[in-house]
């Protein structure tokens, strides 16, 4: 069945992102409703909706707002549009097609939290979206929706776009704040939390684009409507992304709690696999949440969840709770990447480890060294020089890198550990088979392997002439010996 497209009502090729279109569709009516309420009432109202953050952690937005200290003169709102989690693109779709929906959400949230300035931290890769959103902001200023005395309410708010420059970790709220302050995006230690001491040491709220876009609709349609959607702890509507070798890759809206299978095979969603292939694995919440086994495995007996056995896990519900039962970190961004049966699992492992070793910010030891180490191990396995022991090693690294809370400042190492751990655990037979098929001289090549990381981030090229690769065990040296 087709679900009502609420957030995505204007998201189609050739859709008009102007304020005219948005107003014609009933836009900015929620704002009037909000401005008629007191800010604290509004916070309570959003609290009642249990609007859980769409950025990955699922923390209720209303509760976040209520953490702001009562006596404050300056409040900042940072809109997290640094959508960097592969393969997530729902914020891009939303900002590209309906930027005013986001702006209305920002103004309402800003009013509720008595925000003085809202910064939209937009990742640097979003270029077209930047121009669209900037135009929308200009329109909003011209229409008196931003700036001084918004709609005659006496409430003032400025709104600026701040463009990022390519760093995954700036999607972490304190990394984002540091980056906004003009520093490297190294996440801060908490406490103090941003609500108390955030941007420029002032109380700050950080919300995801999609979270804010939901706010106007909750206001216009009411709590009953919102709470009627979704599952027990996961209310409302969500933009799901699906990509990979499916027939209809894209972003689709549905209430929280559809199954992964529906997302891949539903005719209003992914539309099934290309060439009728089977699914080998799927990361249903973005790669940092971990991987599920696909339907090339047999269905479980009686539909019971048992992650220790090689069973089809596509019945995982995509809400805030169910993915945990399958050994995943959480719902994440509800963006599924589907891997077909013909893909070598070693390539998936390599790709995932490369991403995290490239994006680790380098602050905490486990993450800085662990991600790089795992990447090197994965590269070696992919190149046909793996050892059976490497699988245990990878599992062990993931365990002490991010499986226990508190090991690191931010959640990035957890996000790096879960996909690798789930891949190694759930596809161990395949890894073992592939490693077993390796040529006999694999062990020798293992040492000859040069350091893949040396070519990883050549951003300071020309800085110095450095020997390529490591110098402790260069191939030349080994050959000589």
């Amino acid at each position: 069945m087709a679900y009502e497209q609420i957030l995505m009502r204007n998201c189609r090729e050739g859709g008009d992102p102007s304020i005219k279109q948005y107003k014609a569709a009933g836009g900015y009516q929620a704002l009037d409703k909000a401005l008629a309420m007191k800010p604290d009432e509004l916070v309570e109202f959003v609290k009642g909706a249990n609007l859980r953050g769409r950025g990955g952690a699922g923390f209720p937005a209303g509760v976040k707002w209520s953490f702001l200290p009562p006596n404050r003169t300056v409040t900042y709102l940072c809109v997290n549009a640094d959508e960097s989690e592969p393969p997530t693109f729902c914020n891009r779709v939303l900002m590209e097609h309906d930027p005013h929906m986001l702006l209305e959400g920002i103004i309402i949230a800003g009013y509720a939290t008595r925000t003085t300035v809202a910064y939209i931290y937009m990742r640097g890769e979003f270029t077209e979206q930047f121009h669209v959103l900037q135009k929308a902001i200009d329109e909003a200023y011209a229409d008196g929706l931003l700036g001084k005395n918004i709609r005659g309410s006496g409430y003032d708010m400025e709104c600026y776009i701040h463009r990022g420059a390519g760093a995954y970790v700036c999607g972490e709220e304190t990394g984002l704040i540091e980056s906004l302050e003009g520093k490297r995006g190294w996440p801060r230690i908490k406490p103090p939390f941003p609500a108390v001491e955030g941007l420029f040491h002032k109380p700050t709220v950080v919300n995801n684009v999609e979270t804010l876009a939901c706010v106007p609709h909750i206001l216009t349609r009411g709590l009953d409507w919102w709470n009627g959607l979704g599952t027990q702890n996961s209310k409302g509507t969500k933009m799901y992304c699906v990509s990979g070798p499916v027939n209809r890759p894209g972003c689709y809206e549905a209430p929280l709690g559809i199954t992964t299978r529906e997302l891949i095979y539903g005719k209003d969603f992914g539309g099934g696999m290309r060439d009728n292939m089977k699914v080998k694995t799927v990361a249903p919440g973005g790669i940092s949440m971990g991987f599920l086994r696909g339907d090339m495995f047999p269905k479980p007996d009686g539909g019971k969840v048992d992650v220790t056995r090689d069973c089809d896990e596509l019945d995982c519900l995509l809400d805030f709770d169910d993915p945990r039962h399958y050994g995943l970190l959480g719902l994440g961004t509800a963006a599924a990447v589907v891997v077909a049966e013909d893909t070598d699992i070693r390539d998936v492992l390599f790709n995932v480890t490369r991403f995290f070793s490239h994006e680790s910010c380098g602050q905490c030891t486990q993450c800085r060294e662990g991600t790089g180490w795992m990447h090197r191990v994965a590269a070696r396995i992919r190149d046909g020089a793996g050892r059976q022991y490497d699988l245990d090693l990878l599992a062990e690294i993931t365990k002490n890198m991010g499986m226990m809370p508190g090991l690191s400042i931010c959640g990035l190492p957890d996000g790096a550990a879960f996909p690798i751990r789930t891949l190694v655990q759930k596809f161990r037979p395949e890894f073992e088979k592939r490693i077993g098929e390796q040529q006999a001289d694999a062990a020798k090549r293992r040492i000859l392997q040069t350091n893949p990381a040396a070519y990883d981030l050549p951003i300071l090229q020309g800085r110095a002439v450095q020997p390529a690769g490591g110098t402790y065990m260069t191939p030349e040296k080994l050959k000589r010996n």
Partner: protein
Amino acid sequence: MPKITVDGKQIECRDGVPVLQAVLEAGWDVPHYCYHPGLSVVASCRLCLMEMKMPHPQTKEMDWAPKLFPSCQTPVKDGMEVRFASEGVASSQSHVMEYYLVNHPLDCPVCDKAGECYLQDYSEKFGHASSRMVEDKHKNPKKDIGSKTLLYSDRCVVCSRCVRFGDEVAGAGELRVINRGHRAEIDVFPGVPLENELQGNVVDLCPVGALLSKDFLFQQRVWNLRSTPSVDPTTSAGATIWIDHNDDRIFRVRPRFNEKVNEWWISDETRFGWKYVADSKRLNQPLQRDNGAMKPLRWEAAPELLRRLLDEAASADQGVGVACVLSPMLSCEEAWLLSTFVRSRAPQATLVTGYVPVSGPDKTFPKGFKISAEKAPNRRGVESIIKAMGGPNATFEQFVKSAGDGKFKLAYVTGGYPQVWLTADQARAIGKVQTLITHDLFESALDEYATIRLPGASWAEREGSFMNADGLIQPFERALKPLDGVKSDGQFFHELVGRPGLYRGAKTREAMAEKIPAFGDIFVPRPEPEHAH
């Protein structure tokens, strides 16, 4: 004072410190790299993690929380209960130590830090002897980042202490982290080298051998060094230091924690200001003028000779024509012994505060570290002794003027400055004194007028105490044997006064305190916790 329970033992701790600091002070060895009490907390090395009792979310009963907390970031709270002796903590420590070795070159045999390296120590105590990583290491380059410092960034553990020091204490911010992830390294901006006046501290701060002092590079294995507590002889601030020496040679000077003066830091002036001690131009032979030419004088004969000369000069007029210049480079004890000696035979002798070199204004750094303009350690000490002794006194300028007017028959002039301290005019004026006894480290313009010239010892070869500009009396110990042919000043004055046995700073101070009670109140900074670094 809050009380907390650590590993089942109750300890009392200072208010407002992090748990890590509290347990270090209580004697625990908790591994840490990024934490330093003098810098902001970043909690990035993740080594000092601990377990803590928290109320259970449902039952509200206090129980061990199923997560780890960085102890450097958690302030102590009365009644809190934490533990380091647990399987979870030990396993986390051992794994983090393994990560540190992933890209660290195991070049300890050629590393200056080996022996005092916290990567070695913690690997031994908390980690592993070997690494399970079989791939190539990612190797960052070695860099020449300043006139005094080298950076071997392949050894770096990215604790960012040096960066924070540059930002917060030195206020210069030349060092930065560049790149990210495991390619992160420390660097300076091209052509903007590390050249602030506190830069030497980053070498001490570095827990591994990444930041190296060019001055100390490949000079000595640290386990051959012995450390002697001392006080900075270059300025009046009175920074406390360690002299690291071997075979009667100084190899380096490091800061010694002092909560009242320099905290954990010293300036480069102090750090490298000891070089004159090993200068080949230092005097090492007492001389006596004999028919116009200087002839060697035996140390044993000197006291008798001096007593005789002094008696001759003071016999007629109680010593009105006698002056004694007490250099601010002398320790309090030495100044007291010498003035006591002079006054014992010439009660009306003039006591003079020696020349006090001053260079520029005082400098204060962002967190309050001070470099004082007065380049002598004990002006205040000498002044208080002169005041306590009473009788005629003079400033150095007054003395030079009166000497030029021919007022003095005999003068005992102590120097001890590492640099030239007299102009030719001043020397000529002082040269009018008939019997001139000089006691100095180096040749000076006074030499041609001197009747007796005695070689002095440097501060590292002496013991005693300095009173700093704020009136703090801080003792220092002898690190080196005096140069061949040199007698330590204290020992010589001790013999002059005729006291029995060997000169001892502390003993002399006791005797001195009986006469001048203010000198009974000395300040010794509390030692840093054994496992802090």
